[in-house]
């Protein structure tokens, strides 16, 4: 057992702290090559991670970089720097701590490379960039430990894959490197541990006391939740009452747009002028920092926020977490709840606020899952090859490399341990020559093999472009928003949203209503406007799909004869659906059709999650297009897809037959927007499309345009190109999520119930106000476009021609 040196003992004692058992365990196993700690928020997790480093560095003997700390958020790195400097200063330890993120100044970054601190706090992207420099061996030569914080969050995304690839590089540069992961409660710790370790090393797991179960319930309001929508405006008075009764409340939303609307409405009702702030990823940095500072200083009673506050930044005394909108995913809900009562061994208090009637059902299902500790999670596939391509390019930036050695190094990454040499060579060939069937770039290869067999950049100047494109975060194209005549940005909106604005339109940003004036040099100029109801800023935020586990719970609830656990209004609604149509069943697909406002509608209940239901909409409308049924559009939620069109469909059931859907999927893959978006993501990560040009930023619109064309061209001339294969693979998960359609098809095995009705059904009602309707670009749209063009021609006085 490692005992604390007297200096540390004294420091703990003066604080009135005793070392937690898991902190002691981390010290005892400090020599393990890989070690993962699972602890709830507020359990002294970060200190547990750093304690061995502080001990090892306390004698002042270590020269250069000792510990690297990586977190998914820049803010977290800054926060940890603050928190870590306190004990270091108080114990007078000879340790230099610095952070390095996208926000760090150029001169500071230069200096860090020449003279690294003992402890460097950074993000996966900044770390990948560091490994791309020629002086990487110098920077990392003495590195002893790497601490990956919030590893559960990183492990879910390509950022985690990129980080682990960077770790394999570091392990070669610093063979004694020990790896430490810090994680919140997860459903499969072994999987994450296996990704952290240098394969095939084992990884020990330390479980901290998870603390008492959370005190969590659904907020019951006087007013009934509305049929549709995600704003939860009805709950504003009740939420405000809760804010008054607690010290500090975090109010989580699933999307940025919803957070903006809720914040706006909250202030309209906030007659007591309680200090309430807003925080989400689309806000300008200065604005977010102001809110963060106010929060740390305890000046705010509540923060309306999104996932940007999901991770473990210490916000002080939060005693209530409110989740507005169904949580969609139990694991995330549990992690959010953990934000309340940042004190070990005190139960967290949380309230769920369903935004509409269906979400009442979802919230009740989620509450039961939390009670039963039934966390959800989808298994990850093998390491993505687009990230691997980027890693190869990053490696080439640092200097000539040997392909055999690089391959062996990559195989030490858990997610890539099964990577075949052929698959690796594919990626290398893509990086070197483009990997096209038509070998067109012999003269202009990106990578060349030198006489001694090493690979290097043909043009060393290309390194700068590659570095500017490092990262795997999929940013939608956004435009800065600022007040006219003022240079300070208010935040960002998506370009697609900006394109829908005409001068005079109003929208919400940073909690204020602004009026769109014009677009100037890729910046949206606005003026202040307090009077109008705003048009909504449709930031995409992240629309999470309901997890499979949660969907199954809901279907099980539908089997009950009645629902005593649901509020009466919701139980009655489900009962009404059962009387006029039927409730969806887990082993059958329910298809309703009915007319509404002059259009023919089909509603199909598949419970496969938002992304898969959206894909289903695309597949079915494509088939309808082929049958000349003139579909116009569709909208998908986690549980159903609603399709409308110009022609009636008397027998929609064949459209949903498994064989048809599977066959359609193959043809459909070649040309649709979601595939193009998936392609664009993979092609950007792999370095086929550039994100940031060294010169002025390419307009996002042009980028969208050209990547779609690249996709079409490849589909036509080179369908087996690496990027196409990656796109097809990703289509099974992610945005296309055909994997869950397959799950739905096998669960229902061709059992389809078709019910024809003369009006909208209770369960389909929420679909009608759902955001994110998708138009079908087909004959139906051409018909409407021609009608519109003819109308405009007629108005222009040339209609008779």
């Amino acid at each position, binding site marked *: 057992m490692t005992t604390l040196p007297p200096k540390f003992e004294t420091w703990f004692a003066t604080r009135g702290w005793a070392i937690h058992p898991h902190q002691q365990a981390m010290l005892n196993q400090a020599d393990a090559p890989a070690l993962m700690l699972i602890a709830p928020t507020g359990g002294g997790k970060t200190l547990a991670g750093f304690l061995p480093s502080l001990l090892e560095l306390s004698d002042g003997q270590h020269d250069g970089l000792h510990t690297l700390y990586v977190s998914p958020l820049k803010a977290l790195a800054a926060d940890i720097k603050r928190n870590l400097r306190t004990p270091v200063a108080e114990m007078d330890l000879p340790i230099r701590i610095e952070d390095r993120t996208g926000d760090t100044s150029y001169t500071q970054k230069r200096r860090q490379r020449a003279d690294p601190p003992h402890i460097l706090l950074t993000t996966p992207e900044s770390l990948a960039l560091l490994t791309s420099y020629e002086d990487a061996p110098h920077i990392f030569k003495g590195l002893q430990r790497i601490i990956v914080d919030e590893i559960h969050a990183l492990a879910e995304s390509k950022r985690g894959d990129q980080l682990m690839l960077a770790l394999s590089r570091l392990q070669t540069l610093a063979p004694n490197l020990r790896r430490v992961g810090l994680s919140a409660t997860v459903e499969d710790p072994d999987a994450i541990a296996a990704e952290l370790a240098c394969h095939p090393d084992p990884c020990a797991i330390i479980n901290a006391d998870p603390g008492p179960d959370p005190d969590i319930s659904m907020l019951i309001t006087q007013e009934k939740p509305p049929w549709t929508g995600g704003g939860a405006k009805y709950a504003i008075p009740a939420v405000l009452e809760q804010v008054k009764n607690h010290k500090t409340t975090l109010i989580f939303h699933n999307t940025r747009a919803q957070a903006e609307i809720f914040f706006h409405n909250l202030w309209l009702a906030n007659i007591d002028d309680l200090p309430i702030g807003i925080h989400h990823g689309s806000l300008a940095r200065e604005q977010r920092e102001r809110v963060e500072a106010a929060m740390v200083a305890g000046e705010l009673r509540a923060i309306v926020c999104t996932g940007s506050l999901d991770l473990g930044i210490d916000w002080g005394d939060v005693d209530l977490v409110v989740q507005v909108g169904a949580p969609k995913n139990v694991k995330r809900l549990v992690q959010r709840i953990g934000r309340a009562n940042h004190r070990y061994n005190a139960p967290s208090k949380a309230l769920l606020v369903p935004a509409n009637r269906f979400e009442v059902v979802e919230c009740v299902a989620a509450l039961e899952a939390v009670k039963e500790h039934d966390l959800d999670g989808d298994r990850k596939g093998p390491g993505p090859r687009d990230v691997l391509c980027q890693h190869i390019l990053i490696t080439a930036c640092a200097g000539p490399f040997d392909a055999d050695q690089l391959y062996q190094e990559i195989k030490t990454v858990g997610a890539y341990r099964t990577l075949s040499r052929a698959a690796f060579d594919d990626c290398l060939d893509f990086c070197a020559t483009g990997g096209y069937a038509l070998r067109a770039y012999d003269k202009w290869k990106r990578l060349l093999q030198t006489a001694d067999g090493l690979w290097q950049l043909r043009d060393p100047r290309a390194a700068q472009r590659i570095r500017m494109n490092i990262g795997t975060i999929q940013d939608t194209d956004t435009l800065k928003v600022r007040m006219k005549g003022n240079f300070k940005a208010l935040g960002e909106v998506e370009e697609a949203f900006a394109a829908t604005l005409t001068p005079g339109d109003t929208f919400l940003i940073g909690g204020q209503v602004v009026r769109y004036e014009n677009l100037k040099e890729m910046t949206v100029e606005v003026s202040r406007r307090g009077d109008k109801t705003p048009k909504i800023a449709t930031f995409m935020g992240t629309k999470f799909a309901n997890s499979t586990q949660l969907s199954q719970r809901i279907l099980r609830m539908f089997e009950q004869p009645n629902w005593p656990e649901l509020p009466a209004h919701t139980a009655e609604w489900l009962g009404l659906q059962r009387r006029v149509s039927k409730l969806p069943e887990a082993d059958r697909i329910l298809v309703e059709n009915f007319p509404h406002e002059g259009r023919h509608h089909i509603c199909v209940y598949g419970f496969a999650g938002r992304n898969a239901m959206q894909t289903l909409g695309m597949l079915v409308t494509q088939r309808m297009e082929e049958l000349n049924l003139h579909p116009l559009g569709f909208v998908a939620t986690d549980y159903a897809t609603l399709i409308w069109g110009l022609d009636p469909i008397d027998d929609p059931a064949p459209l949903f037959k498994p064989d048809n859907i599977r066959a359609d999927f193959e043809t459909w893959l070649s040309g649709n927007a979601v595939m193009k978006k998936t392609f664009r993501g993979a092609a950007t990560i792999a370095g086929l499309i550039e994100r940031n040009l060294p010169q002025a930023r390419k307009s996002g619109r042009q980028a969208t345009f050209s990547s779609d064309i690249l996709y079409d*061209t490849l589909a036509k001339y080179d369908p087996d190109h690496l990027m196409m294969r990656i796109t097809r693979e990703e289509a099974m998960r992610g945005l296309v999520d055909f994997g869950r359609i397959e799950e739905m098809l096998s669960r229902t095995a061709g059992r389809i119930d078709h019910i024809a009705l003369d009006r909208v059904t209770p369960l389909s009602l929420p679909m009608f106000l759902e955001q994110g309707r998708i138009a079908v670009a087909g004959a139906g749209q051409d018909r409407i476009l021609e009608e519109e063009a003819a109308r405009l021609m007629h108005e222009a006085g040339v209609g008779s021609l």
Partner: protein
Amino acid sequence: MSLDLPYGLPQEQSMNAYSFLFCQTRCTALPSGALHLPDHDVLCVSDLHLGKSERIARRSGVMLPPYEVVETLQKLETDIAATNPDHIICLGDSFDDLDAAISLNEDMRLWLARLQAGKTWVWIEGNHDPGPVDMGGTHKADITVGTLTFRHIATNATAEVSGHYHPKHRVTGRSRPAFLCDTQRLIMPAYGAYTGGLASHAPELRKLFNGRIMAILTGHKAIPVPIT
């Protein structure tokens, strides 16, 4: 009737093309973005940008799918077969730069030569390809056909057909490459496969026109629509 817009010639509308009278010359906008002058047996295409992927690879190391030349020539071959013109005008920026013209591979050169066989072929110079190219055809700054003058970048001249701006126009939320014209000026969409576009409401485009503008959308079908 008095109209200040080039108007359609209903008796000649084929399935998907759109015919209209521009400065007393009969013109047909093809859905592909080519312009056909049936009375003069002329087919005009603008901004082919051949060799764009090669130029990008040479300059940046990024290697786009090298299929845009095939795609563009395939389209051109189809339009030539459909209209069987005597004269073909490439209205500038036919090559993404002069080096791209030189580097065009042998197959593509032969294909281009096949397309040129039996036709008068005019390369109008553009800002991307200001000099003559080592390929069949004549190199010119501009050319006059009947009442119309063809040049790459619009000037103040009347009865002028030009390219350069890659105009696009948006109707019911869909943006498509489009011809833009008023009574004196016709600006063609880009024909090449890897070409971006400039929205029809951009001031650079708007200032070239006086009075009312008509857009002819390309796509499955050439669809005329007035710009309001």
